[in-house]
């Protein structure tokens, strides 16, 4: 009985000493702030994605019909650089951005070819494209593609030498 008590006490004391020696264990880390929840980009079916190279080839082919290209991300990014010919539709992670997107497409035929993109941050963290895609699907648009931006617009479009413009 005494032996068990000594073992138990030693274990408790040991844990306390380890915790005191290791600040990482002793003090809880401050929790990282979390962005608002959003529909993830991963919710977009693969069949609805278009690769940057594919879109660039389409834009550079004079004979190819051009889709309506909408940037559904942040204005600070759009102003610095956007796909040549793309319109700013507003961030789809906010209701105001979604409303702007709905208004932009309200008068369009449902079979209009539309490409949306963002590129604000790595694909799995983008708060906009999943929301924008779902909104357009909900409105009945049947020819919507989402440009797959693996890392960000700078690396995956601009630095590849694909056509860009800047300004609001």
């Amino acid at each position, binding site marked *: 009985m005494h032996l068990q008590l000594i073992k138990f006490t030693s274990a408790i004391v040991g844990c306390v000493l380890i915790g005191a020696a290791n600040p990482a264990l002793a003090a809880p*880390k*401050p*929790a*990282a*702030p*979390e*962005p*608002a929840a959003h529909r993830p980009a991963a919710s977009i079916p693969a069949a609805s994605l278009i690769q940057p190279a594919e879109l660039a080839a389409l834009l550079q082919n004079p004979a190819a019909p051009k889709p309506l290209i909408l940037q559904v991300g*942040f*204005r*600070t*990014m759009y*102003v*610095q*650089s956007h796909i*040549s010919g793309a319109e700013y539709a507003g*961030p789809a*992670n906010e209701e105001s951005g979604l409303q702007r997107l709905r208004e932009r497409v309200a008068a369009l035929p449902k079979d209009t070819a539309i490409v949306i993109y963002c*590129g*604000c*941050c*790595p694909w799995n*963290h983008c*708060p906009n494209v999943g929301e924008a895609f779902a909104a357009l699907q909900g409105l009945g648009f049947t020819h919507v593609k989402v440009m797959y931006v693996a*890392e*960000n*617009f*700078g*690396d995956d479009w*601009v*630095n590849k*030498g694909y*056509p*860009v*413009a*800047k300004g609001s």
Partner: protein
Amino acid sequence: MRLIARIAAAAILSASLCGAAGSTAVGDMAPEFSRPDLSGKPVRLADYPGKLVLLNFWASWCGPCLEEMPKFSGWQREYGAQGLQVIGVSLDDDSASARRLIARHPTAYPILIGDAALGESFGGVLGLPLTYLIDPKGRIVARYQGNGDLAKMEAKIKALLAQRSK
């Protein structure tokens, strides 16, 4: 003469088509800037002479950015006395979003309100997070785009602070 004018026009057009994403490279001098902090006070890069500056572009909607910020606060507390100065620059379209977030999750370093012009002065901030290390002479010594390896970043900071103290 016309040929020169055409070449100049082509060069200007080419530059504009290339956009701003020729990203400020390691080895370049960091552009000087002044932007307001959350209290409205102007903050300049030049306000931190002799410091190793960690300049972090972030936004409240950027998950990977928010994951990094507690670490940066920890580094400011741990290495500040050795000469590290962290500066956060919010690229939110609406500064109120940054204010709300920082009110709930204060940082141990100043947060500035950035804009597209500041991004362009750094060669285009076209994806977040983006972090620069700027040495005490104002030269960019490292650039980390996206989900950086924070252990590597910290090792680089320690090495630079050790150099600085020699």
